[in-house]
């Protein structure tokens, strides 16, 4: 499966994809504050745009690969060799999954970068830290591309940590604001917990796979590991899978490590759109799909993945019902949708999960950028209780936002409908309980999404005091429009036109799934060998169209209910909150999970740290003081001999002479 250099052809653009943003980041980092200043965004746009162009070229080249030889391993150079005979390369794995992910990442990144040019300005003047922002964005694109392109676990881990770092840097962009600094720390630390499990997983892989490694192979290469999965016991596979999934739980904000994502909204809105909607948080899903061979070998791990995904989806959706900060609502929505993706993977429908990832990138980024546009117009305020009726003031923002909301809610014919529906199908096939959970979550999703839309854009027109609200400029609107087009059209790559399907012409599973088929083969194999499935994976859902209609109805019902509660009669919401104050406050306060974490985890660690600090001060410093006191004491003692009087020195000399004479007398 490894192509020779001459056969690489267009695939040789692969190193450029992470390299161009890296160079852009370095250039902005070095020259940004002095030379480029307000032109820094051009360097970032060129870097990320170049990466996008190369990703498109790569995608085209991957499509040329035959289904038997669908993977190309591009080895850049030999990286680390800790022991003789053991080495790790910097190599890239190029296959359909990589192609799709790269297009998503670079595409959304480019649109976000263009959007940021206007967002990070106030009345046309760049904000403080303008250059730093674009340097970090470019660095992030480099990190994410490295993660996606990685051909072995070590490089994957490198990219994994780097995206965590960039997330920290960008969340804490407004580092002067205490809430932002705290949120950045929280994100990094919670991620760390997950990454600890992830690194243990990588170590476990190395430990258990290296006995089977042939000379000339590296133990952490994807090809080597996946080929040797059959040599591992099921217990080993389960352990590795669960450890790797721990990292995914941290990175993709599932229970219990989701607490950082809502706080991460302290960063600028484009950052939330790029990192916490479309790319970084999807790294966990990507990793699980990539390591499908390992996960599939362990049914227990798959069940865990599905269960956590489903529970998280429902849990986060309930929290979103009582939030008033638009970005928070969208954050919990992201957590919920990520839960959907993990549910899809756990239900052995990895291609559906990746499809949902693909469509979710579009509409979630759109929603976040739209929220950013609202925030920009409202002078930094994003609490829906402070404004309403914006659809006349911000027409374009409203239109694109509604399109994104429709996609998120799963309204028929929008992209989200198709992808979410496939996951609901797979969930039902896995276990009826999962299916029910998925459907309830879909209902809630539609409801809270449009609650947010109607609260913000409908109703009487009011803006906060002293705010001059106006529509955003073209730099911000064009990406919104492009993403809106994607939010509608991206779904259609995943369905095929077939007579007799849903609404008469649509059939699930399209070119997207065919394209990914070689990569998700382990999942399909597991499906066909499991007792739950009676139909072949890519066959039509014989009775499945019913479910599609049902999910369409659910989405419409949710939207209608939200319309009634928030657009027509606003007092209902207030009365509900009055009648069930405990429930409302419980949900509004996110089930007090943060406080619980604080008491059980943070405070004990803090106390331990203080104790260690005290021990260090007392024990170590005290011992040092003791040790230094001895020479000082001795010195002080001897100092009394030096009284400056020459005659005292004479006495001392005489005493020494006496000693010598005595020694000579008695001994000599």
């Amino acid at each position, binding site marked *: 499966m490894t192509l020779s250099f001459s056969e690489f052809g267009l695939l040789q653009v692969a190193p450029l994809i992470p390299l161009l943003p890296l160079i852009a980041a370095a250039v902005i980092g070095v020259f940004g504050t002095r030379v480029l200043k307000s032109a820094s965004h051009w360097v970032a746009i060129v870097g990320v745009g170049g990466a996008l162009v190369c990703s498109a070229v790569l995608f085209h080249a991957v499509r040329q690969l035959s289904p038997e030889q669908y993977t190309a391993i591009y080895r850049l150079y030999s990286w680390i060799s800790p022991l003789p005979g053991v080495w790790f390369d910097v190599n890239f794995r190029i296959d359909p999954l990589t192609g799709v992910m790269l297009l998503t990442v670079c595409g959304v990144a480019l649109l976000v970068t263009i959007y940021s040019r206007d967002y990070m300005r106030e009345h046309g003047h760049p904000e403080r830290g303008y250059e730093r922002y674009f340097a970090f964005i470019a660095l992030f694109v480099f990190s994410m591309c490295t993660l996606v392109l990685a051909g072995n676990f070590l490089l994957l881990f490198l990219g994994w940590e780097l995206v965590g770092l960039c997330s920290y840097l960008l969340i804490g962009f407004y580092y002067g604001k205490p809430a932002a600094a705290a949120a950045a720390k929280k994100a990094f630390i919670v991620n760390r917990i997950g990454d600890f499990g992830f690194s243990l997983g990588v170590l476990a892989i190395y430990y258990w796979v290296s006995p089977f490694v042939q000379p000339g192979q590296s133990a952490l290469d994807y090809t080597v590991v996946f080929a040797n999965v059959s040599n591992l016991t099921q217990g080993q596979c389960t352990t590795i899978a669960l450890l790797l999934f721990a990292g995914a739980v941290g990175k993709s904000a599932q229970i219990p490590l989701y607490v950082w994502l809502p706080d991460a909204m302290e960063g600028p809105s484009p950052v939330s759109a790029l990192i916490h909607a479309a790319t970084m948080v999807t790294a966990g899903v990507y990793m699980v799909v990539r390591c499908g061979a390992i996960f599939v070998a362990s049914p227990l791990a798959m069940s865990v993945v599905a269960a956590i995904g489903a529970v998280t989806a429902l849990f986060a959706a309930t929290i979103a019902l009582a939030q008033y900060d638009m970005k928070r609502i969208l954050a919990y929505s992201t957590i919920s949708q990520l839960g959907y993706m993990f549910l899809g993977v756990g239900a052995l429908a990895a291609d559906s999960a990746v499809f949902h990832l693909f469509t979710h990138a579009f509409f979630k980024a759109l929603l976040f950028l739209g929220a950013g546009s609202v925030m920009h117009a409202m002078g930094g305020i994003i609490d829906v209780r402070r404004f309403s009726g914006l659809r006349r003031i911000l027409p374009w923002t409203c239109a694109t936002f509604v399109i994104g909301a429709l996609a998120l809610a799963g309204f028929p014919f929008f992209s989200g409908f198709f992808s979410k529906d496939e996951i609901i199908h797979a969930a039902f096939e896995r276990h009826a309980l999962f299916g029910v959970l998925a459907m309830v979550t879909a209902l809630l999703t539609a409801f809270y999404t449009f609650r947010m839309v109607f609260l913000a854009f409908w109703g009487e027109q009011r803006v906060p005091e002293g705010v001059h609200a106006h529509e955003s400029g073209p730099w911000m609107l064009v990406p919104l429009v492009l993403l809106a087009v994607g939010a509608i059209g991206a779904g259609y790559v995943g369905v095929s036109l077939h007579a007799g399907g849903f609404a008469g012409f649509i059939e699930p599973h399209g070119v997207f799934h065919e394209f990914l088929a070689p990569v998700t083969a382990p999942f399909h194999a597991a499906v066909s060998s499991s007792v739950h499935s009676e139909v072949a994976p890519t066959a039509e859902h014989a009775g499945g169209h019913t479910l599609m209609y049902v999910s369409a109805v659910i989405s419409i019902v949710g939207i209608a209910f939200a319309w009634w509660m928030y657009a027509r009669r606003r007092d209902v919401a207030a009365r509900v909150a009055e009648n069930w104050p405990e429930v409302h406050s419980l949900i509004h306060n996110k089930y007090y999970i943060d406080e619980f974490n604080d008491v059980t985890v943070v405070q004990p660690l803090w106390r331990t740290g203080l104790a260690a600090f005290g021990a260090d001060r007392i024990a170590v410093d005290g011992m040092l003081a003791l040790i230094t006191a001895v020479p000082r004491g001795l010195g002080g003692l001897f*100092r009394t001999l*030096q*009284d*400056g*009087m*020459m*005659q005292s020195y*004479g*006495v001392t000399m*005489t005493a020494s002479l006496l000693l010598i004479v005595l020694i000579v007398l008695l001994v000599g």
Partner: protein
Amino acid sequence: MSIVNAYILVGAILFAIGLVGFLSRRNLILMFLSTEIMFQGVILNLVGFGIRHLDLKGQTFALFLIVIAAVEAGLALGLVVLLFRRQGTLDAEDWQRMKG
């Protein structure tokens, strides 16, 4: 007790008394006076050794010792004069700058 021992003993006593004076008097000039006593003690010692060996080497050595003593006295007094000029007093306890 032989005569040699007697001379040596007296010389030792003189030397010791001179040492005591040097170590305990505060007047700079008196300190050097005490060193002169120590010289006397040494001369007696040398004379005693001369008796012991029955040659003139002891006395000759003592003669040269007188030369040395004279030279030393001259230079010592020069230094004492210098020190006196600096400090205005002959007190040795005024010169404690190297204390501690």
